[in-house]
């Protein structure tokens, strides 16, 4: 028998997925803007950051209402909890995309280090795809895919380490490159944090399917926030 709750849950689910798509789009744009040094797009990302925050608040409000009015149990409860938790992770991921946009503006016309640019492009692509994949995993309630995405997070961490050592190296060769290097460091760190948040969403997808709270990549590091 279809309940009113089911209709509202379907709507909540659709709103959550839509917010995820928006976050994914913003991340992709922020990465492209960085690589192309496109300050105009970067500024528009910063100006629209509140869209994501507003969606988060609306979704949280709706989940509180559904908990109060329907007192969900079993799978219903897990779906609501998953959305309530994952929505914060998505919002935080969006904040890091905004940080990247700030970095893009700060970077201005500073010199490009080819090898670092290459790494940033690679990390950016990987992160963007990871966000798209986690949304698909959420929509399909696919906990296997969620587990396998944790590997991508490890690869991102690995690339982040490489960016770090290359940046330090570049700095030691040329002290005037200090600001540029710190921006590369920050952007790589932001992308790596997005990977961590996506991994959290993966954990919630596993919880949704199994009821088990798991910690993927508990050793995943590079986590100074």
């Amino acid at each position: 028998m279809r309940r009113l709750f089911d209709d509202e849950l379907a709507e909540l689910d659709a709103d959550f997925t839509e917010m995820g798509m928006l976050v994914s789009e913003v991340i992709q744009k922020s990465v492209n803007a960085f690589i192309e040094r496109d300050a105009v797009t970067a500024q528009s990302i910063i100006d629209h950051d509140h869209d994501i925050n507003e969606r988060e608040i609306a979704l949280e409000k709706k989940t509180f209402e559904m908990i109060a009015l329907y007192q969900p149990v079993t799978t219903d409860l897990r779906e609501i909890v998953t959305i309530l938790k994952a929505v914060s992770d998505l919002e935080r991921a969006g904040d890091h995309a905004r940080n990247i946009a700030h970095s893009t503006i700060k970077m201005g016309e500073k010199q490009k280090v080819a090898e670092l640019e290459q790494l940033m492009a690679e990390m950016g692509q990987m992160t963007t795809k990871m966000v798209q994949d986690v949304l698909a995993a959420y929509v399909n309630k696919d906990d296997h895919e969620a587990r396998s995405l944790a590997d991508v997070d490890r690869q991102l961490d690995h690339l982040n380490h490489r960016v770090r050592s290359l940046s330090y190296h570049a700095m030691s060769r040329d002290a005037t490159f200090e600001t540029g290097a710190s921006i590369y460091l920050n952007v790589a760190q932001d992308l790596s944090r997005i990977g961590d948040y996506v991994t959290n969403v993966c954990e919630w997808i596993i919880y949704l399917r199994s009821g088990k709270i798991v910690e993927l990549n508990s050793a995943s590091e590079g986590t100074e926030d």
Partner: protein
Amino acid sequence: MSKEILTTQDLHLYYGSKEALKGINLDFDEKGITALIGPSGCGKSTYLRTLNRMNDLIPGVTITGTVQFKGKDLYAPSADTVQIRKEIGMVFQQPNPFPFSIYDNVIYGLRIAGERDKEKLDAVVEKSLRQAAVWDEVKDHLHESALALSGGQQQRVCIARVLAVSPEIILLDEPTSALDPVSSSQIEATLLNLRHDYTIITVTHNLQQASRIADRTAFFMNGELVEVDQTKNIFMNPAKKQTEDYISGRFG
């Protein structure tokens, strides 16, 4: 904007010298579900019964104040209780089908009113039973006794019996408290469908039911209306401490 269909102003009801309703002011817009909640003896069922004059038959009852249905005073000397109960139907706690066939139960009101056109009666039976979400279960047994049905089916047939006379308001007095959880959910689903076409006022002890299905909830205590608001406000952030204590089970 929805229109007011039923209003009560300064409604007092006394059982002898005991004041059971202490000046209730409560209005209902057309369509939607309002749940009346509150502890036993708070006056919610008494209030519900004033809305189609079901308290008239109780000896020693005195009612003051006004109840208006579409601007007409229900307690005016000229008011016709048969007509009132046709426009404002009621479903009770215990399913109470008459000891006739399902078909005869549903058309009871129309037959009393003198309707004899078989085609018309057939159409009303099907439409009412469909609206009450029980048609598929009983369509092949229309001429069997309604008493042979399960409690949940009986209750839905009783809802169909009310619908058959085309009411505008449906009053329900704890319609699911005598039913098992599955039958209760079927009644709830039925009410959720009906709320688009009828004004539904239901008394319930089941707070979860109120929160699940009601657009608006009114909390009664000691013969007074403590608070009425959109259900989500009542359940998430009620204005009165008494409401909060009752909803969260801290009451008493």
